[in-house]
């Protein structure tokens, strides 16, 4: 059974500092993961992804790291901005059915 776990329901950081959001997974068939960002009263939007052939993918201020041996991935946001305040979902992809974690609510304080 596929599972994606985000063990921290919330995270608070100061503007300009690094935000690190963590995610653990089990039984991944494809080792392909995505991060989605969700603002209140809106649908999730795709942020960044990583596939098994890489251990790092970078897009501007956002970097995702994948450690396949530990079955762990993390999203780094540097520098964090108040507009980054949202819920971040770790998602397992690669099949017709996305598997979502419960999400981590990030608050970036000015």
């Amino acid at each position: 059974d596929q599972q994606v776990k985000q063990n921290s329901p919330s995270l608070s950081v100061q503007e300009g500092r690094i935000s690190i959001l963590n995610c653990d997974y089990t039984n991944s068939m494809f080792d392909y993961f995505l991060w989605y960002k969700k603002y209140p009263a809106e649908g999730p939007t795709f942020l960044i992804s990583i596939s098994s052939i890489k251990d790092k993918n970078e897009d501007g201020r956002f970097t995702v790291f994948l450690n396949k041996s530990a079955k762990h991935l993390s999203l780094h946001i540097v520098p964090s901005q108040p507009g980054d305040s949202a819920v971040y979902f770790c998602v397992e992809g690669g099949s017709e059915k996305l598997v979502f974690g419960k999400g981590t609510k990030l608050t970036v304080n000015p």
Partner: protein
Amino acid sequence: NAGVTQTPKFRILKIGQSMTLQCTQDMNHNYMYWYRQDPGMGLKLIYYSVGAGITDKGEVPNGYNVSRSTTEDFPLRLELAAPSQTSVYFCASSYSIGPGSTDTQYFGPGTRLTVL
């Protein structure tokens, strides 16, 4: 290009009533999905469709029905609404998906449903 649109935005139902949540996408995507999100939880897949005339169950299909008569529309039907169906419902679409796919899903803004 409106993307994925959902109606209504909000709805309150009484126990036992029925309703249809509408979803339309204008991106000519083959794949469409319905999710529900309960408070403090991630999204769970209700039903999905890989093309017009083809639908399949997701993780939590009980109490729901879907149809896909056109590429653009994917309505979700609730029959005999129950309080356990109080949730936020998201529709999504993607051009391709499946094993090895790196495509992403695009989500609508959601429908907040309360069953009293």
